[in-house]
């Protein structure tokens, strides 16, 4: 039997299929307006690529609208994103005790014990500061692609300071810096640093124990990653997997543990 995970986020939807302890394949798409449609498309494309039928895979759903994904028959059960990220990261590296997951519209810091069980977590989904949206807004103000933002930290000479916590006020600051002739590299580096600081404050609320793993799309921004490592005074562990897929992986492992005998 094969096991699958579907993780519908605010900006992207991910699917993954496991055979035993091996990842057979995965898929990552921009979300459609409806989480059920996103789930159908992301898993449908993956099954087609792998030459599989829907009945070949027992899938669990996580993320936005996961209950609806189950109701619509695209997944057998649903599990919270917190549990899935803890499960996925621990499965990839059992030394992990903290998972920092930064998604498009939320940020979570999850503490797990030596057996991979959830100990505590803290989550921000009320304010865009410290989420992917913060970066998206500032990148747009700077006329940069989201993928270009991270690298700016490494070529900036004098990163600016972004003082506002609020994403909207920070955008005003970014525009003022541009008007005053600061370079895009220096402003972008300041944005990455500000982003890291907001995640750092969130992490301090629950505490951080090594090893620490990063999950979610923002983990692909090298500038934020480096600034966050400096603030936490540690190096993140490698998970040998695209950080955006950890939630879907966790969901697939839950399915395997429950129905894999």
């Amino acid at each position, binding site marked *: 039997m094969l096991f699958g995970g579907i993780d519908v986020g605010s900006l992207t939807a991910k699917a993954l299929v496991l055979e035993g302890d091996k990842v057979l394949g995965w898929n990552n798409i921009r979300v459609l*307006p409806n989480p059920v449609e996103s789930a159908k498309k992301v898993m449908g494309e993956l099954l087609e690529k792998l030459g599989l039928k829907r009945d070949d895979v027992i899938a669990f759903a996580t993320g936005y609208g996961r209950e609806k994904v189950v109701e619509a028959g695209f997944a057998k059960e649903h599990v919270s994103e917190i549990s899935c990220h803890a499960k996925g990261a621990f499965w990839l590296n059992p030394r992990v005790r903290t998972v920092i997951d930064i998604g498009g519209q939320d940020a979570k810091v999850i503490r797990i014990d030596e057996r991979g069980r959830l100990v505590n977590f803290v989550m921000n989904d*009320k*304010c*865009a500061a410290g989420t992917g*949206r*913060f970066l998206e807004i500032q990148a747009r103000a700077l006329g940069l692609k989201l993928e270009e933002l991270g690298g700016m930290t490494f070529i900036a000479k004098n990163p600016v300071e972004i003082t506002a*916590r609020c994403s*909207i*006020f920070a955008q005003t600051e970014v525009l*003022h810096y541009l008007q005053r002739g600061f370079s895009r590299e220096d402003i972008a580096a300041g944005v990455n640093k500000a982003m890291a600081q907001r995640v750092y404050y969130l992490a301090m609320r629950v505490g951080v124990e090594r090893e620490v793993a990063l999950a979610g799309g923002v983990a692909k921004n090298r500038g934020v990653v480096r600034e966050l490592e400096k603030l936490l005074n540690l190096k993140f562990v490698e998970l040998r997997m695209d950080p955006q897929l950890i939630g879907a992986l966790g969901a697939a492992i839950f399915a395997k543990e429950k129905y894999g005998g």
Partner: protein
Amino acid sequence: MFLGVDVGTGFTKAVLWNGSIVSFAIKETSGDLKPVLDSIVKEMRGFKRCCATGNGAELVEFADIREDDVTCLAIAGRRMVNADYVIDIGAQSITVVAVDEQGNVIDYVKNDKCAGGTGKFLEVMSSALGVRIEDVDSLALKSDKKLLITSQCAVFAESEVISHINEGESRENVISAVCDAVAKIAVSQANKLGISGKYTMTGGVANFTSITERIRRALRADYVKFPNPQLAAAIGAALLAEEL
């Protein structure tokens, strides 16, 4: 005559005062404030003393004194409309002030860390809707269906606005929900102080009756209208310049 200058994050306001308003100016606060302030001095000659307030008060070189905006709002609220409370919604802040009989500050709450419910919030939502800010009131009046915007965060609220539009809701109904959201945030700030007696509303957002009406419905206290609400802090500054 006395001059009050309020350098806000959105607009710079100036009031020339001689027992009542002699003249006033409202100019956009730009990156380079010098030409804005120069034109104010030129237009408002003959003042004896000047008091500056607002975020950019330090930049007003010709000011004799500087006072924080909370103090200015308090005295303006008491002297102009005899208010016990002032709810001020500016471009980037919401301030609620409790005022004593003399116009001094008893207590206040201020949020200038989050765009939720501020003028900026209204600006972001109307721009997402493709609605001019001056049309907010007239459109909100035409609403015939109650929609909900639950986020206080301007970024997340903007996503909610876009979802409503994608689901085919009318601009009138969405803008009305935006006004509900602004009012709700202002009311929750006001409730931190607990409003009783007479209150007034000031700041640029108080010009939107669709919002002041909603706040009035939610607060059980006597409302008194502030004439020219955007000038409140500048008037208070002029009054403080006079008293010195």
